[in-house]
């Protein structure tokens, strides 16, 4: 492996500023790593010339003593983020010719802070999926146990695979029901979903507007702190973004958990969860205890209703958001005899199966006669789920749960949509409540696949989330590298 690939984001940030190596050298190492790991399918689009231009500018800034927080650090971008002049497809056939004329707020903030763009990363189509198999250009492979053809998770599967295979130093993701945390868990990396409102959604392809949040996928907790520092912030172009200043997360890395109360929800240890994950869950609890935290058993009684609520609300919002793909203003058009036929053929041809299923469900639950029974009912139960969290966060500071019920499954293994949906059982509840969550790797299961633990915090307590996650990371000493990583 190129020595340069060994540096994580925080280490590379310091090394570049100390002139141990240049951004051009680092960026070239990643461009080579992208080629070496091409068979994983993580990237949909690379922009080598642009990457090197940005790296050159960063090296000049460093030479001039005006380095920005992420100066010269090469990262990948999930294809849900609109990038000016660079093809943005959301992994859908319907956007196969779409070149945005604007840049998403989050990616703009990353470039403004000096990050170098490597390219666009695959994901499930419109971020709808948990395995990256709904991507129009085909699935991405998990770099772990490469011979076994394991899913990287989804929907940010390309982002997770790229970071785990060291073809990106870090990557952006979006999380609607677990799309950052689940692939991070499957690929043995750290994934942070911020509080709803922490990052601007402007310029991100909309899936479910009351749930979507952008966040970082990185190698370490410190890396996610550094990256979220740049991604977060109020944006007047997103009316749901929060006008709240976030403390510098790097300052939170060493605060520890002494005296903090960690809730262990009893609903997250039900049947179907793998024994290896339960074992590491118990180990993680002991680590936090050892670090001086108080462990408190808690109950979130409406947990089992989170998935049914999610699979009403997310498709309902999706069916509305995806109405814009009509073949008129952008995207791939399929001609028809009438305007309506053109719409129907364009959408029927452009959307994949899972997206069509969700548009159908969403349209059904919002249709006349069913709105109250499904959509309104789901919104009411969503309040109960949020109240469960409000209640426990009066007693505890954080919740610890496994990130997923199993480690990464094989590609092609889950054919039935409902079986696939059940994979998000531990990540969806926090999404519905808008709370921040982080998944970090704690060990490997018997077959050698990574296991992730999830911490959930109160709204806007990303600082606490980072402090606590760092404690677990220190105990876990997860230093394994995927066998499919760039050599």
């Amino acid at each position: 492996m190129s020595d340069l690939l060994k540096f994580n984001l925080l280490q590379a940030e310091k090394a570049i500023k100390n002139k141990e190596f240049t951004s051009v050298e680092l960026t070239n190492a990643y461009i080579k790593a992208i080629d070496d790991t091409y068979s994983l399918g993580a990237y949909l689009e690379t922009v080598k010339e642009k990457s090197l231009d940005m790296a050159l500018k960063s090296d000049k800034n460093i030479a001039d003593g005006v380095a920005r927080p992420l100066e010269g650090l090469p990262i990948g971008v999930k294809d849900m983020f609109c990038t000016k002049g660079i093809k943005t497809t959301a992994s859908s056939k319907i956007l196969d010719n779409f070149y945005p004329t604007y840049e998403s707020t989050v990616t703009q903030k990353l470039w403004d802070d000096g990050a170098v763009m490597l390219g666009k990363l695959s994901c499930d189509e419109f971020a709808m999926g948990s395995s990256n198999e709904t991507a129009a250009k085909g699935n991405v492979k998990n770099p772990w146990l490469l011979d076994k053809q394991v899913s990287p998770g989804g929907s940010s599967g390309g982002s997770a695979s790229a970071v785990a295979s060291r073809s990106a130093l870090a990557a952006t993701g979006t999380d609607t029901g677990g799309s950052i945390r689940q692939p991070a868990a499957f690929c043995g990396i750290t994934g942070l979903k911020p509080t709803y409102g922490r990052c601007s959604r402007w310029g991100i392809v909309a899936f479910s507007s009351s749930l979507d949040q952008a966040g970082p996928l990185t190698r370490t907790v410190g890396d996610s702190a550094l990256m979220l520092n740049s991604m977060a912030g109020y944006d007047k172009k997103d009316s749901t973004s929060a006008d709240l200043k976030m403390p510098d997360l790097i300052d939170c890395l060493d605060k520890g958990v002494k005296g903090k109360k960690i809730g262990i929800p009893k609903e997250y240890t039900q049947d179907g969860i793998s024994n290896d994950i339960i074992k590491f869950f118990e180990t993680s609890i002991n680590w936090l205890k050892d670090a001086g935290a108080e462990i408190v058993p808690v109950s979130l009684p409406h947990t089992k209703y989170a998935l049914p609520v999610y699979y009403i609300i997310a498709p309902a919002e999706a069916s509305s958001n995806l109405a814009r793909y009509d073949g008129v203003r952008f995207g791939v058009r399929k001609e028809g005899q009438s305007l309506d036929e053109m719409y129907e053929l364009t959408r029927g041809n452009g959307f994949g199966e899972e997206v069509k299923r969700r548009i159908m469900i969403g349209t059904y639950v919002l249709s006349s006669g069913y709105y109250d029974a499904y959509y309104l009912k789901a919104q009411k139960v969503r309040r109960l789920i949020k109240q469960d969290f409000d209640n426990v966060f009066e007693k505890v500071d954080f919740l610890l749960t496994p990130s997923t019920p199993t480690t990464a499954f094989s590609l092609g293994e889950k054919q039935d949509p409902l079986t696939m949906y059940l994979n998000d059982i531990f990540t969806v509840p926090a999404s519905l409540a808008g709370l921040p969550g982080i998944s970090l790797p704690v060990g490997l299961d018997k077959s050698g696949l990574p296991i992730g633990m999830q911490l959930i915090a109160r709204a806007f307590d990303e600082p606490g989330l980072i402090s606590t996650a760092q404690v677990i990371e220190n105990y876990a000493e997860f230093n394994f590298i995927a066998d499919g990583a760039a050599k």
Partner: protein
Amino acid sequence: MSNKKSIVDIQTVNKIARLARLNIPENDKDNLIIDLNNILEFVAQLEEVETSNIEPLASVTGHKLPLRIDEVTDGNIEDLVLQNAPEKSSGFFVVPKVIE
């Protein structure tokens, strides 16, 4: 909401697909009916939750949507607006004829 199985039949699929302006090939409809019924049966478990005094939750943050003065904030970007259009002419989007 109903616990009855198979609440979605071929007529419902055709109606919903029409509302969503989604062309579904005839061959795909049988499988779609099965999937939709499975999903709707799964979400029907919400019926057992008592919600008579619960307000629906639309916004998790609860913050008030900000207002701004109703004024033009950008413009004169016709080329950019039309840049990705599948068909355009003289500064307009072009669609199939809608008036007979």
